């Protein structure tokens, strides 16, 4: 049983909104905040609705619509979203007004839109989609949880197709709070130089990447989505290494069979240590591609990584801006491996159609 990625939509800090272009002109940012490039939201959302929508909703709807248009699908069977922090802008707005006004003179819009399933709900509302509609909200595995569920529904025959994606927005207060927690780099530097910077912390990002999944391949298929797994609270690198081997073995693969590894390295030496350790041992000699210098770090950044893997399989080449070492000889299997502050690891296996 296979699940195919048959269409894609990606709104990110890079020029990714048009699937006919693949990182031809990488955008570098100065400082630690990478925000999505406005794709011209008016093209995707009716003007009377757009004003009230926070950026996360706009990004999610635009990415979904790009994806569905490419799929040639007016209304999907199911919508499953993943978001780590949900609608932060609306949450901050409602909470801020509540505190400043001492619980008086509040309006409902930001409260209504603060709910974590707002993006999926709004897509359903715009498309009049009555199908299955879920939202996962679990830190670094929010998108992976959505993918797992989407694959399960397709495999079980519960849904013919599923629109699934990861979406998170970066806001100034959330950036400032995580700055104090030591998440971000202190000194401004060009974002494309992220992997040459050895200071602690990473750069913040955001984005919405959506995928149209089906059981059958089409002329437009990007990749086979072979499998997705998560690991909670690993005790150390041995457990992670054993877990990766076990995961690959289910598909008859060994680490050496991976054509390209896409690790979620984010330039923070402390967070990247585990990637380096296993890349030097289990994945020695395997070609690597990294992406968080393009989209920044956020809880659903692995959706950008999955987009990257799927695009590489479709285009048949690895763009220079993401290649970390020698190019792969062939492109059969791509493994997207990510972790969120070491408590949650995830693996997404993509294969050539």
């Amino acid at each position, binding site marked *: 049983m296979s699940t195919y990625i048959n269409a894609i939509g990606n709104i990110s800090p890079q020029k990714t909104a048009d699937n006919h272009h693949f990182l031809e002109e990488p955008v570098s940012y100065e400082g630690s905040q990478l925000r999505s490039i406005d794709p011209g939201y008016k093209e995707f959302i009716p003007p009377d609705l757009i004003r009230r929508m926070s950026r996360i909703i706009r990004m999610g709807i635009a990415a979904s619509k790009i994806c569905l248009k490419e799929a040639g699908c007016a209304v999907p069977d199911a919508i499953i979203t993943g978001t780590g922090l949900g609608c932060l802008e609306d949450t901050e707005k409602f909470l801020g007004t509540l505190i400043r006004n*001492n619980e008086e003179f*509040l309006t409902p819009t930001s*409260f209504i839109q603060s*709910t974590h399933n707002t993006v999926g709900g709004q897509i359903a509302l715009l498309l009049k989609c*009555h*199908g299955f509609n879920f939202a996962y909200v679990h830190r670094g595995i*929010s998108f992976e949880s959505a993918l797992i569920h989407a694959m399960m529904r397709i495999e079980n025959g519960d849904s013919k197709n599923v629109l699934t994606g990861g979406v998170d927005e970066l806001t100034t207060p959330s950036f400032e709070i995580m700055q104090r927690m030591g998440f971000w780099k202190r000194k401004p530097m060009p974002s494309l130089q992220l992997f040459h910077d050895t200071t602690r912390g990473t750069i913040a990002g955001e984005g919405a990447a959506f995928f149209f999944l089906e059981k059958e391949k089409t002329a437009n298929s990007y990749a086979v989505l072979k499998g997705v797994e998560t690991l909670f609270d690993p005790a150390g690198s041995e457990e992670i290494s054993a877990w990766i081997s076990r995961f690959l073995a289910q598909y008859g693969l060994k680490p050496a069979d991976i054509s390209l590894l896409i690790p979620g390295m984010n330039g923070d030496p402390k967070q990247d240590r585990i990637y380096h350790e296993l890349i030097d041992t289990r994945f020695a000699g395997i070609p690597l591609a990294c992406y968080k210098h393009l989209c920044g770090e956020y809880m659903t950044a692995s959706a950008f990584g999955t987009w990257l893997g799927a695009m590489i399989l479709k285009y048949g080449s690895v763009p220079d801006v993401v290649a970390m070492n020698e190019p792969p000889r062939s492109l059969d299997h791509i493994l997207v491996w990510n972790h969120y502050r070491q408590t949650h690891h995830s693996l997404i296996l993509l294969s050539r159609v």
Partner: protein
Amino acid sequence: MPKRVFITGIGIISSIGNTVNETLDSLLSGRTGIGGITLFPTIHQGKFPLAEVKLPTSALLEMTGHAGERCYTRTALLGMIAAAEAVRSAGIHDIRQYRTGLLSATTVGGMERSEDFYREFLTDAGKGRLRDVMNHDCADSTDRIARHVGVKDFVSTISTACSSSANTLMTGAEMIRSGKLDRVIAGGTDAATRFTLNGFNTLMILDKGGCRPFDENRAGLTLGEGAAFLVLESEELVKREHKAILAELTGYGNANDAYHQTASSPDGAGAVMAMSLALSMSRLKPQDISYINVHGTGTQNNDLSEGVAIEQVFGDHVPPFSSTKAFTGHTLGAAGAVEAVLAVLAIRHGLVYPNLRFETPMKELHIRPETTLQKGLDIRHVLSNSFGFGGNNSTLILSKA
């Protein structure tokens, strides 16, 4: 034929009791948990009631063995207590013996502490204690519950507003059916917060006198808090371990109303679809359902939409129904699981719960809820509805096994 999924354990903490037994006792004696607001300072004190868990956070910390620690939110603690009770009730000694997942739901996560943080932070971005905000996200409570009960194989969180924890049960069953896991502890947790209280107040859907579901003069919902978890196990596991079965999850369905971000459609389209999907999956006819535990929030909009949908699905065979939110308040992300636990108790003890505070039938409907406790019934199948913002409509069917 899909694989069968059994419920072998239940745990609950809400305004009507800190354990399953206390909850049952309150239900049998008609004791509501709705009272005054004591948990946090608010200008709404004395104006709106609240269904609080009757324990301060310090007591919850003690109950979970974390007295004096500062990194646990009330949402996490409530969840830990209910999940631990569910695991005990399922007679699980070594949770790692079988592939076990935890799926938890919450709508506001650690918001109750974020409110404290944000007050300081707004005056100066360098202020506010970080430990009050680092547990803000929805996953925090889930991870802590997982560690508390020792779940490792799959841990995730669903947040689809007021249908959230019905959806964790649905997902848990799907994961067992598809062979990914042998057992899932599924449920949800939400603490009461100023954020939600004020949020629902801006929508003008809080009843000053306590909610009156399905009453002509209903004026809104009453917010509650709590947590509930159910242990779902595969047929193979249940047979191999000779487990005592409390009930079976025979059907479920999720559909989107796609009508409005918060309001339900006048014809209850999403609700009709969710109930029909669940009935069809369980291969039951409407007349097979012994009792409906309605979503029944007590808002003008929900009860009308849900009532119309029930009349459409059940026609002349509307079984006894009631909303237990007049007991527990609306526990948001926990509500679906809270009501699933009550459905299990209804099956086990042959009960139909009274819809408290009901006086006048709604003029648009032909049906009216049960108002007195019914005992000694043969409750074979309970249909439980949970509907949320974003048009998210979910139905579960729990059956006598």
